[in-house]
């Protein structure tokens, strides 16, 4: 008997389903598709919060506010958290807001260090003057509380072993008083710690970037205004990326490729400490930096493809099932006669 079309659909081999999935995810990568996405209010709130710090710093040049950035995520959620970190850090460096960074667990340190220096390099940020990597803040609650007065005694040195009292940036920023915002990018329940210690005790404002799965737990705190905005999953990262790209185009106002290759060309690079990053851009590195600028949106186009793919699969499966049932009902009826 000849196979009917619905039999083909219903008996489609799993490897073929997997192959289809592979294609819909990989093709946007190769084709460098970037999906524009609509911007939700919670992401905009976070963006506006950082903008407001910039505006404050413009007006009060002698008492600028800094941002404390916590890398609260590990290797298993880099796909979702990395793009958030990239776009938020780019926003901070673009607006030249002083930046302090720490990470609460040992496995997170490596992630934090590479990501931070990678972005700092793109904006010619100077270590110790524009940004500082404090290193390990464990146990994190002790560090959160002591930031209420002064966190320097707990650190002693930064991640690279520099004395915290010798770092220019840290002579000004060491407590919540001069911090405009705490940003926690995370896959854990760390934002609740921040809420409990930094917000409840010291009225510190907090913004959060989190994975899609844990975002559901944090929505109530965003709507109650305890978090100043939230980036939820890859989608939130894509939204932020979009907003920062608009800003970057406005500020830099030239092609990113030209900007990056000119960045270290005409200046004396011997002044820059090579411990943190190499002050030059190779052609490939520029390409990667440009790729990174749309990482979340590329991911979103893969996501979109995957979602549409699975919905079409389900649709066809149901159609096949429906017609098959109809047919078999008919045959049973004929037999009964």
């Amino acid at each position, binding site marked *: 008997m000849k196979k009917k079309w619905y039999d083909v659909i219903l008996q489609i081999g799993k490897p073929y389903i997997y192959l289809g999935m592979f294609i819909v995810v*990989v093709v946007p*990568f190769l084709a460098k598709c970037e999906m524009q996405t609509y911007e939700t209010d919670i992401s905009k709130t976070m963006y506006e919060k950082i903008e407001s710090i910039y505006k404050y710093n413009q007006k009060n040049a002698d008492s600028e506010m800094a941002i404390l950035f916590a890398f609260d995520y590990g290797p298993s959620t880099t796909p979702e958290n990395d793009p958030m970190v990239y776009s938020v850090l780019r926003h901070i460096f673009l607006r030249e807001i002083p930046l302090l960074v720490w990470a609460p667990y040992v496995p997170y340190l490596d992630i934090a260090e590479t990501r931070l220096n990678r972005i700092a390099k793109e904006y010619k940020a100077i270590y110790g003057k524009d940004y500082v990597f404090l290193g390990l803040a464990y146990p994190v609650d002790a560090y959160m509380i002591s930031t209420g007065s002064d966190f320097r005694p707990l650190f002693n040195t930064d991640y690279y072993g520099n004395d915290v009292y010798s770092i220019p940036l840290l002579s000004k920023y060491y407590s919540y008083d001069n911090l405009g915002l705490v940003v926690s990018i995370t896959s854990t329940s760390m934002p609740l710690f921040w809420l409990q210690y930094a917000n409840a005790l010291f009225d510190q404002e907090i913004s959060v970037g989190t994975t899609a799965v844990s975002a559901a737990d944090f929505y109530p705190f965003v709507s109650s205004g305890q978090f100043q905005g939230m980036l939820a999953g890859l989608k939130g990262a894509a939204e932020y990326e979009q907003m920062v790209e608009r800003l970057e185009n406005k500020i830099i106002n030239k092609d990113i490729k030209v900007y990056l290759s000119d960045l270290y060309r005409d200046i004396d690079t011997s002044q820059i400490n090579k411990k943190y990053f190499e002050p030059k851009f*190779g052609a490939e*590195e520029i390409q990667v930096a440009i790729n*990174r600028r749309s990482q979340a949106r590329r*991911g979103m186009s893969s*996501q979109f493809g995957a979602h549409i793919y699975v919905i079409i699969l389900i649709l066809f499966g149901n159609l096949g099932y429906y017609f098959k049932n109809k047919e078999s009902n008919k045959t049973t009826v004929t037999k009964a006669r």
Partner: protein
Amino acid sequence: MEAISTLFWPTVAVLLTLAIYTFLWEDNPIYKVAEHIFTGVSVGYMIAQSWHNIIMPKLIVPTTNYFSNGRYLLAIYFIIGGLIGLLYLSRFSEKTSWLSRYPIAITVGFYAGFKIVPIWMTNVSKQLNATIQYPNGDSMLNLKMFGKFFDNPTWGNFISAINGPIIVIGVLLVLIYFFFSFSNDNIVVRASRKPALVVLMLGFGGSFGYTFMARISLFIGRMNYIFSDWIEILTTTLGG
């Protein structure tokens, strides 16, 4: 030479990644190699971890500390713990293997007792509390919400008024559905069966669909490693 050394390990990672994906087509020796490497590496890692994270910091260091602090009773208690742990080794022989029942009995008993209160707090008390009131203390069956709806009968007000009652009814239905020892003829049990299944299936479907995106993100992450990070290293080392 340097090019090879910077390229070597990332390429290993990429090859292993691809080896795992071949399993999706069918089982094959390449996957089998990757799988066995992973088993070996993870067990090896675990052996060292047991030493670094349990035996050293939890047994040897505290015991010696207690001895030097003069807290002999504690030191002896820890040594007894170590000895009981060693009883697991009795399993190497059929005849003595019953000795390993002691550490098993102790761990099973202790954790069974230790978990009762936290289980009650998180799974029972807290969840029932959340079914009675919202986190901010408002009642789940908030009459004010209904009042608001009757004053201003919009769709949004209606939804926010009935969400609480729906959750309460849903929880009750599910609780009743799982009764084991009440007869099926019991009118409450029988009437709640189908509605309970509706709640359960909507919940399961929603939860399944919600996780879909996170799982796809994982695959995108791996592809990002290959197409962004690894390609970068490859082209820089080969090109420059």
